[in-house]
């Protein structure tokens, strides 16, 4: 059960049933009391046996031997050899039809039987070819499907790896900053602190040395501040990221007036979320340029302790146009899903794109 039969299998079964029915009618017409029934029953049993245990194809030989031996008792039964030949051809093992061929050549080389066997062989071969063709088509389809699923899962993995990598980069950067501060500026400041403590004690006893040490401490502090400034300068990225990038995008947008507002604390949003938000805004603005004759675009970024929400609206919806997510938007949706967020669109009164991402 479960697996439904394909058409050629059904034809195969119907063909055999027709053969058995014709044999039965032949039997009722042409005497031969029990031998015919015995033949019918044995053929039925062997047929069911092969249906039950499909691997035992060699039992076809038994079929034909039974038919041949019965044919000496009841001559007409030889015609059912056609069924054996047909089945052998369909199952793709023509060697199993040899008993029928020998019998025909030896006993009935020119008669109607020969014609019948040839016809059955052709029918069987045609059906066999069909089944092979269908099998290979199915195999191709399976292969395609497998490849598709593999690509999909690879994509999901890449998106997950993206988030992971951003976090790793952040961590390594953080540890680099910590090391820099600790190794350079830290040492200077600690030394200055210790000098100042000593100065505090020396003020009462040895004022000259105290002053000397005080100057030294100030110098060390100055050098420490210098190092911190340097480190900070080194740390500042040259490209704009975060909310600045969004601002720059909206500033450069010249198609129509844009109103971009930000609410909340932008420092809470991690870098990998900024990347998605930026792509989102870019996609929305591109869509505005391409499809909508908008008068004004409103973009809002809301940041709460738990989520960040970007909403881009424009008032230019064409009449009678329906919206389906294009490739760019679908990719964005998958990226958002990979970080646990969601992107949805609506075209109720105005075109609106909302991107909601969680802050972890």
């Amino acid at each position, binding site marked *: *059960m479960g697996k439904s039969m394909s058409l050629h299998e059904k034809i195969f079964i119907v063909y055999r049933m027709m053969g058995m029915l014709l044999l039965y009618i032949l*039997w*009722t017409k042409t005497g031969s009391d*029990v031998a015919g*029934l*015995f033949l019918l*029953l*044995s053929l*039925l*049993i062997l047929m*069911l*046996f092969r*249906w*039950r245990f499909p691997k035992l194809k060699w039992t076809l030989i038994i079929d034909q031997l039974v038919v041949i031996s019965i044919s000496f008792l009841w001559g007409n039964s030889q015609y059912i050899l056609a069924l054996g030949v047909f089945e052998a051809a369909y199952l793709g093992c023509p060697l199993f039809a040899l008993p029928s061929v020998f019998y025909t050549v030896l006993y009935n080389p020119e008669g109607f039987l020969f014609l019948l066997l040839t016809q059955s062989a052709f029918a069987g071969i045609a059906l066999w070819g069909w089944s092979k063709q269908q099998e290979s088509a199915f195999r191709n389809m399976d292969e395609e499907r497998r490849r598709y699923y593999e690509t999909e899962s690879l994509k999901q993995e890449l998106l997950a790896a993206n988030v992971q990598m951003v976090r790793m980069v952040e961590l390594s950067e953080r540890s680099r900053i910590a090391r820099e501060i600790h190794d350079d500026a830290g040492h200077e400041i600690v030394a200055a602190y210790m000098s100042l403590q000593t100065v505090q004690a020396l003020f009462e006893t040895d004022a000259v040395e105290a002053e000397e040490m005080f100057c030294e401490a100030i110098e060390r502090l100055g050098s420490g501040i210098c190092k911190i400034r340097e480190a900070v300068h080194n740390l500042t990225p040259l490209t704009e990221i975060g909310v600045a990038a969004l601002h720059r995008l909206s500033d450069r947008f010249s198609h129509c007036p844009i109103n971009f507002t930000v609410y909340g604390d932008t420092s809470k949003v991690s870098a990998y979320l900024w990347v998605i938000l930026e792509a989102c805004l870019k996609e929305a603005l591109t869509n505005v340029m391409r499809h909508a004759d908008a008068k004004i675009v409103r973009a809002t970024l809301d940041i709460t302790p738990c989520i960040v929400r970007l909403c881009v609206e424009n008032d230019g919806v064409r009449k009678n146009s329906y919206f389906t997510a294009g490739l760019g938007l679908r990719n964005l949706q998958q990226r958002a899903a990979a970080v646990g967020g969601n992107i949805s669109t609506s075209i109720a009164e105005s075109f609106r794109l909302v991107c909601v991402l969680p802050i972890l």
Partner: protein
Amino acid sequence: MTIFLFAFIRSLRRKSTLVAMFVLPLAIVFIRTLWTLENGRGFLFYGMIIMFAAFSLVRSIMIDRMTGTVVRIFAAPVATFQYLFQNLLAFWLIIGVQTIVFVVIGSALYGWGIEMAVRLILSYNIFAVASLAFSLAWNSMFRSKVMSDAIFSIIISLMALLGGIFIPISMLPDFLRKIGMLFPTYWLSNSLLFIQDKEWNGQYWLSILIMFLFSAAFLLYGSKRRLE
């Protein structure tokens, strides 16, 4: 043999089985007119009782399949072969014991003699196997009990009609006889005919052989594993 044991106990618990197994045969074995060797309808009626008993026994396999019990059974390390074999063996044992009891009572009442009794028991037992196999194949074709029962009642009427229950098979015209030969009941009445005539020739053994072939075919068809 756990499944065997449970199938045995389960079958004996059902009232319909008990009626078909023990009340009906005893009811007809004491009606003297049925058992004269010339008329001999009783032998065939008893065959029909076996058929009905087999059908109602095999019903439990169908119930297993419909209620999903069979899925749970196959969740255990049990092969289809084991499940079917042990169930059918239990059913066959019940019918077999009943046949022996019946034939012993009949022999005591009507003096059938040892050889006839043995042949009767053999005939009935092979027929019981064929009926069990037939019921198994029958029930594997249907998903609803009502449908299966309704069509079975049609088939069993035809079997009775063409298998010599209503009319002796010798009276059937040739083309009806050749339809009747496709049912095991025909061969049961054929073998019973030769038992009653006390003719021990090849025809009796031929009937047994053909009933055996029928059983094989039905078993092959009915034993395919189906979980639904």
